[in-house]
Each structure stands twice: as structure tokens, then as C-alpha cells.
């Protein structure tokens, strides 16, 4: 319970806020709305998952929250900074120091060793070589790969690569780790290890973790799950309120997940889209 109290304190401060975020893609003459006004608050120290079927706008929201995309209308605040107002230099600064990125395909720079991959963001942040090497080794140790620091990505397994990627994401002590399907290319056991590692980072460093995932294991580690459907916020669920039985999910993960989720959702203020979803679920 002590842990819960600590978390609640952390969760009072928002690290990412979206306000009526709308995104319209123009394809030729056709305007395709990807997001239809999403208001969402992500609190510091949270472990949050964004869920939704493909084409739901999940990726768009995820990229928006990670400072990789700008809304057509509405605003995204990362650390109370309106992303839309940032120029290229400020965006680079934000990505370098405030956000750590983890990818489904790991995306280590192939020509660089594990340590060099971890120290690259520190170099971009202006850290000296010695400082960054020390911190890089410290982070590699944390993810359990200190002895592999000189290995090139192709000499590492998928799980090891993702661990290096987590160390790299933590390089500049970001407020947010943005993880896009971090277990998508990993087997079950390795996926579990990566989730555990992310959880540990969340617990120990207090870093906010935002993931987009289909992985039930991931959902079980999350504090909250944000469901997106047709460009709108479908519902937001707390982990305490749902019961996820990993292993009982069969077939289509999306349908399967919905089938195993039950319980009440927390109605987030200003989430117009959550109402019909609640009705549907109840």
C-alpha cells in the first residue's frame, strides 16, 4: 500500500496532456479524420497503454503524445509545453532529453556497438565522452548487458537488442518512455523480460511509460489502458479494475482482449467518447 501512496502522489502531476486533439490526413482530395477530438491526461510516473484496432487512430495519438506528429486542431502539451509551437531545434531538444523511444524493430544503429548506441543520445545532449561512457555502462549494467557493451546489434539477440534500446531510451533520464509495440518482435518469454524491465524502470526511475501494444502481458503491467476506436477515446481502464488472464486469450488479440476484460472504467473528465463505451461494456 505504501507503494500505491507514492504512486498516487506522482500521478497528480500531468506529464502529457492532449486537448481536443484532431488530426485530419489529406489523401488527394479526400480528407480522412484520424483523430476526432481527444482529451487525455497522462500523469508523471504512470505506465499507460494505448490500445485499439488498426486504423483506429491509435498510432496517430501515440505519435502525437510522443512529439512525433502535430495535431491539425487542438493541442498536445508535453511537460506543459505546447508541441505545436516548437521549432525544429526545440523539438530535437525535446526528443533528445524528455522522451526516450523504444521501437518494435529495436532500431539500434547497426554500425555502432551497444555502448555507442546508448551514448549517442548523450552525445546529442552535449555530454562529454567520459561522462557518457560511464553513464552508458551504468545503464547497460541495469539492463544486464554490461558484458556485451562492445557487441554490434547483429551480434545480439532480439531481446538483448531491445534491452540496449531501453538503456538508450533512458540515456538522458527522460520524463517519458514511448514504447511502440516493444514486445511485438519478441517471443513470449523474452517479451515478459522486456515488460519486467520497463516496469522496473517505471518503478525505480519514476519514468512515465507510454506504450502502444496488442500484448496482453503489457496490459497487465499498465496502470491504465486507453482504448481508441474510430478516432475517438473509447474508454480508459485502470488495471485494478480489470482482470487479465494471460494465456486464456485465443485468436484475434483485439477481440480476445475485449472478451477477457471486465469491470468498471474510470470516467476521465472531458472524455466524451467514454460514455457509449461504458454503456456497451455494462
Amino acid at each position: 500500500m505504501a507503494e500505491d501512496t507514492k504512486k498516487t502522489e506522482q500521478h497528480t502531476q500531468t506529464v502529457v496532456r492532449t486537448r481536443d486533439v484532431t488530426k485530419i490526413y489529406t489523401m488527394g482530395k479526400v480528407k480522412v479524420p484520424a483523430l476526432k477530438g481527444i482529451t487525455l491526461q497522462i500523469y508523471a510516473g504512470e505506465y499507460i497503454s494505448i490500445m485499439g484496432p488498426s486504423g483506429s487512430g491509435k498510432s496517430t495519438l501515440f505519435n502525437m503524445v510522443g512529439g512525433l506528429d502535430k495535431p491539425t486542431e487542438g493541442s498536445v502539451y508535453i511537460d506543459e509545453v505546447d508541441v505545436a509551437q516548437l521549432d525544429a531545434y526545440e523539438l530535437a531538444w525535446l526528443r533528445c532529453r524528455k522522451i526516450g523511444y523504444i521501437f518494435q524493430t529495436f532500431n539500434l544503429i547497426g554500425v555502432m556497438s551497444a555502448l555507442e548506441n546508448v551514448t549517442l543520445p548523450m552525445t546529442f545532449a552535449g555530454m562529454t565522452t567520459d561522462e557518457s561512457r560511464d553513464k552508458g555502462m551504468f545503464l547497460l549494467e541495469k539492463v544486464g548487458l554490461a558484458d556485451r557493451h562492445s557487441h554490434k546489434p547483429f551480434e545480439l539477440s532480439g531481446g538483448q537488442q531491445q534491452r540496449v534500446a531501453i538503456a538508450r531510451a533512458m540515456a538522458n533520464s527522460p520524463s517519458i518512455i514511448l514504447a511502440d509495440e516493444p514486445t511485438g518482435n519478441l517471443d513470449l518469454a523474452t517479451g515478459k523480460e522486456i515488460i519486467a524491465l520497463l516496469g522496473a524502470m517505471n518503478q525505480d526511475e519514476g519514468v512515465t511509460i507510454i506504450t502502444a501494444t496488442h500484448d496482453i502481458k503489457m496490459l497487465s503491467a499498465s496502470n491504465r489502458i486507453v482504448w481508441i476506436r474510430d478516432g475517438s477515446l473509447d474508454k480508459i481502464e485502470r488495471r485494478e479494475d480489470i482482470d487479465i488472464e494471460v494465456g486464456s486469450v485465443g485468436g484475434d488479440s483485439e477481440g480476445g482482449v475485449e472478451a477477457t476484460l471486465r469491470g468498471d472504467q474510470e470516467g476521465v473528465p472531458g472524455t466524451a467518447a467514454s460514455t457509449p463505451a461504458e454503456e456497451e461494456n455494462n
Partner: protein
Amino acid sequence: MNSDTQGLQRDKNIGRQMVLPLSKAVEIAWKSIKIRFWRSVITTSGIVLAIAFLMSIFTDTVFNNALRSVEEDHPRYPLVESVIQEQALEDEDVVIRVGILPEHDDKNEMARETLRFLQGRAQMLSFLLPSEPSPLKDELLGQTEMQPMDVMFVAGFPGRISEKTVMEAIEAFVDNGGALFVLGYENLWPEDVDQNLKNTFLSLLSVNLEDDVFEVSAQEIEETDHRIAGQVNWEKLPDSKYLSFSALEGSEIIAQTQDGGIAFAGKHGDGYVCFVPVAGQMTGDSHLFRWVLREGLLPASVLWGARDKLRGDVLPARTLWLVALSLMVCVVGITNAMLMSVTERFREIGTMKCLGALDKFVIRLFLIESSFQGAAGALAGVLVGFLLSFIRILFSFRAQDVVTGDMHWLALEFFPGVDLLIWALVSLIVGIIISVIAAIYPAYTAARMEPVEAMRVEA
């Protein structure tokens, strides 16, 4: 939240990315080349070829210029001159027009033989000059549709044109850079020719007639002091009788026996004259005539007379155009290869941007990578181009001294080391600049790539 507080918050929470780690860019670029070694080699091969071409042309030019800068009083000058002419004659652009003025008697045997002989030689276009004064003057003054005549071979003056205006036209022809080859003296004139005309002709040749005839034997010629472009084989010169002449200022004896000069050459105005003062009527002396033709005095004199023409542009505009074209093709090739490389590396570029790389950093990365490739390719190109050209030059720039029989490797004797280094450096820089220019567009394409590209899952 109003805009004021937003501004305050913004100041507090955000900075501007300023770091451009150049050494890191160099490191990544270098490693990228290493890891994609064969791809880099293929990308670079365009530069290698283009720079090899450029360097080979520079090498040719530098060696040719080195030979051309050999002073006339240098002991190797005659050999150098012959090599330059041989080189020039290999160039298809050079055509020497040789006009033959036929002997005055009806047979024209000598003229025909000369014609036949010269027509068998590459780059020499020989033709019989008209025997009417007016068209002959037009030819001499370059007032015809044809390319101007370079060399006039005088075997005799037909009676009709032995007049003052023709002589003036010949003088004008030589003054304007033409070459005049004169074989014999007494045989040239019709019997009723004016003595003043003969004297005008002598002054054109810059020789002074001394009333005397002497005989030169084949043995004697071996001890003669002679010099002209190395192709003449003096040792086979048959026994013959010569008129005595002495050289005036403007002319020099190029072959001399104890009794007197047997060949004179001189500069007159911008042109040259060569004079072999054979005594009597030439028609009978077919041995000497054949020697003049076959053993090289006439061809050598022709070349010698046309040497300004043969010393013409080392680097013709056509070649420069070809070089420019090959460099442009090279730019397009590299741009294409780099664009492919950029599209393939979308994830790497996107990831780097997610990690805080500025657009400028990405641009630098690709420009540095390309300049490395350019430097390596240009270096290889310089070596390949130099070696290919040098091996060819080494063998074509050798000449045998007809007197001593020694073979002289003129390319080594006049090795233009400093110039070669300078032009190698120029080629190297051109190679680097070319590949950097070629990389500008791909680099900007890479820099424009959005960081969200890193999220793409499909390859």
C-alpha cells in the same frame, strides 16, 4: 491557460538543441562506409572512373607540356621535337596540306612521285598546285574554299608563273606561317627566267649563292654535321652534286660536309623554309630525290614546317567536354546510389532524429560519408588514371638518337613531378567536390525524413 503563462512554461521546460557532434558524424559516416563496404565501392566506382579519365588527361597534358617546354638549345631538342610531332600526327584532327608545285618540264615525274609518296602518309593531304598564276596566288594567300595550305613543295617553277607577283605571294605565304620546301636550284627555273626573280627567291631562303659545285659521297655524309628532327636518315644519302650556298642571317645549315652545306633551314616571318641545293637538273638524279622523299628529309621538313600547327592545343575543347560529361554522369550516378541508400536507411535516420539529431546533423552525416567515398574514389582514380596514361606515354615518348643509336626515354628524362602532384591534388579535390555535390540532394532528402519513420515496421 493563456498564452502568457504558456510562454513562461515554455521558457522553463524547453531548450533548443544546439549540439552538432561533428566527430560523431565523422565516426558514424566512416562506420557506415565500412559496414556497407561493397556498396560503397560500387557507389565510388563512378568517381574512380571519372577521376581516372580526368587524371589521365591531366597526365597527358602535363607530359606534353613538359616536352614542349624543352628549350631549343637543349641537346635533346631534336628528339623531343620528333616525339611531339609523332604525337600530334596520332591526333586525327591534324591534317597537313602539302601543295606540290610541279617541275617545269612536261613529264612532271618528280611531282607525281612526291604526290604518290605523301598521299601514303597519314595526316598529309597532298595536291598539285595549279600552274596558272591567279589560282596559285589564291592558294598561297589562303583565298580558296579549302583549309589553307601548310607546306609548299617546290620542285620547279613552270614558265607561266615565274613572275614577280607569284614570288610575292610565296613570300606572304611563308611570312604567315607556311613552310616552304625547295629541292634544287638551277632546275627550278625556265631558261628565260628573270635574274631579279632568282635573287628575290634567294633572299626568301636567306642564303647567298657562291658559284661553285661540289660532290658529296655516301661515305662522306657520315662525318657530316647535321641536325633536323630525328627522323631523317642521313647515312643513306646517295652521292650527289651540290651548289655552294652560304647561310645568311635567318637561315642555318642543317646538314654540312667539309665542302659546304647540303641542307639549309631557316625561319622567315612566322614560317619556315628548307632548302636542298642540288646542282643541275633534278629529273636525272632520282636516287637523291627518292632519298629526300623516303629517308625523311621532306616528311621531316614538312613536319618541321608545320610544327606550330602540330604544337597546337594539347587539350582540345572536345576532350574538355568529354571530361565534363563524364563528371556529370558521375554526379547523377552517385546521387542515384545515395538516394537508394537514404531510402533504405529510413529507420536509422528516423531513429537518430528521435534521439535528438538535428537536420543539420543528418545532412552532415551524408555529406561527410560522400566526401569520404569521393576522396577514396578520387585517390584510386588518380592512381589508375596516372598509371594508364604513364605507361602509354612512357612508350610513346621514347626516341632513338639517329647518330648514337641510343634509346632515350623522354618521359623519364623530363619527368614533370611537381606538375603531376599539383594536378593529382586538383583531381582529388574535384573528386571530393563532385561527390559532395552529388550527395546534397540525397542528404536533404534524408534530413527531411520525419522521425516517425523510425516507427515503420515494414522494411
